[in-house]
């Protein structure tokens, strides 16, 4: 029986030239849930998820995934375990078609089987509503569509854990609605870790919320617990939620 937590960190710390971006973060991520990571700008959210998926090397501390210590694994090995990651700053293959984009993502797992790769690549485009643009060059898409493609790149990997760094940034209202639907449809099968500034999105999707401030965990809990947490109110949510 797999444990409740799919991922946890112990004392994860990142120091940039003497400044702590993250300080001894202990964190647990529950299987099958949607967890939102929130906090003010510069709280160290992106650094933290960067250390989880191996993009950024930790100064010290440990990361466990499925009860396995993955702290010394390079990024691509962690991804191969089933962690998908979408960038905060859109990073798609701008010179290739959308279909090639998602096919590259799908091919890592499906390998030589071209038929399966293509089917998967089309399926995820369908799922995010970009199928009719499959043969366009990604760089020609609008910013919002590129964000959506970025998410599709993650989906094409059929991840166990899906880490999204500010996925709704720059999306239009209707696109945000689609995104929320997508996340809600995924939850259950896929564990989702979401960095999000849009509190509306957080409240509509998250089962759990963790608040980071000055590189440290300020609070963790269900949305309502966080909503009622005095410290969080004071430090971050302030009047925004009340208003």
């Amino acid at each position, binding site marked *: 029986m797999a444990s409740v937590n799919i991922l946890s960190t112990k004392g994860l710390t990142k120091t940039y030239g003497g400044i702590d971006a993250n300080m001894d973060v202990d964190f647990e991520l529950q299987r099958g849930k949607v967890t939102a990571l929130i906090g003010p700008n510069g709280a160290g959210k992106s650094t933290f998820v960067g250390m989880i998926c191996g993009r950024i090397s930790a100064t010290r501390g440990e990361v466990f995934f499925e009860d396995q210590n993955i702290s010394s694994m390079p990024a*691509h090995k962690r991804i191969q375990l089933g962690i998908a990651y979408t960038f905060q700053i859109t*990073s798609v293959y701008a010179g*290739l078609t959308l279909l090639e984009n998602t096919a590259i*993502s799908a091919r*890592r797992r499906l390998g030589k089987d071209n038929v399966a790769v293509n089917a998967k690549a089309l399926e995820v485009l369908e799922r995010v509503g970009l199928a009719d643009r499959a043969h366009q060059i990604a760089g020609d898409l609008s910013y919002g569509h590129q964000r959506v493609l970025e998410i599709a790149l993650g989906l094409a990997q059929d991840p166990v854990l899906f880490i999204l760094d500010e996925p709704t940034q720059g999306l239009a209202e209707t696109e945000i609605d689609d995104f929320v639907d997508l996340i809600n449809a995924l939850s259950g099968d896929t564990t989702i870790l979401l960095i999000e500034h849009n509190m509306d999105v957080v409240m509509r999707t998250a089962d759990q919320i963790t608040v980071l401030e000055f590189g440290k965990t300020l609070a963790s809990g269900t949305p309502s617990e966080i909503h009622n947490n005095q410290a969080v109110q004071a430090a971050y949510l302030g009047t925004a939620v009340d208003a």
Partner: protein
Amino acid sequence: MTKNSLYSHCLHFGTIALLVALFFLLPAYHVGNLSRIMVLAVYAMGFNLLFGYTGLLSLGHALFFATGMYGLGMAMNTFGLPSELALIVGVVCAILVSTAIGLLALRTTGVAFMIVTLMFAQAGYLTVLYFGSYTRGDEGFVIQQAERIFAGVDITGETSRYFAALILFSIVFLLIAYLVRSPFGRTLVAIRENEERTKMLGYDTVRHKLLAVIISGSISGLAGAAYALLFGYVGATFATVQYSIFPLLWVLLGGAGTTLGPLIGVVFMFYLIDLSSELTQAYMLIAGVVLVLLTLFAPQGLAGEIRRKVFKWLP
């Protein structure tokens, strides 16, 4: 997709068939030229795999070409090995050298990668001169006609040389065509387009890049060995910077990241020099002007422009 792969098969086998046909159609001089062009195109294809498909610009490929060349040449002349074994020695040397260079140079990226490969190649060139008592330095040495027999065939005749070059070209050409459509090749393209993204999709980009350097370097070395064997001369000229710049020029002219580009680039450059030198002594001037015009009006190279404007499926 399947239609495209059919087209691409037609194109590749059609090209080979055309080269066979040209042997019977062209006058002797051009047959000789084409033998040489095909071997140089192998060199360009090796370079293209790294530059055109993986996005790594090496300015030191002459090192690999020369390694293959000297590996074969010295195995035959100094150690008296038969040409078949010597060819293997040449390629193995190229594999070893490209592995070492790959492990070191891939710690850098971008312009630093360019310069590091350039400097290793320069060190290689000077090494050839330094060991002049064995390599005969800049003068180089001749592999005697009598020894240039491969698998029982005297490859110094026009016909056998042409077909030896054609077989070599076809093998590498089809290999590259297969490779760039394989998952491995698609991953190289992904690395070229966006390395960070590719790594974060779970691909081992470091290993892929190293393999690309090794395959590219080995093909270049194979071309060098074949050049020495078919044309009977081994010399330090082939290790100079100029011979690192040539494949870049050929590939850019023909179309980087296309399977046919390297061949087109070599043909174009060869005949540009050859024909303009008949018109004037100042043929380099013409070559220079044509290069400038091409960059202005055919920015993606000849095959690249054809792909952009006519045949989108061109591999």
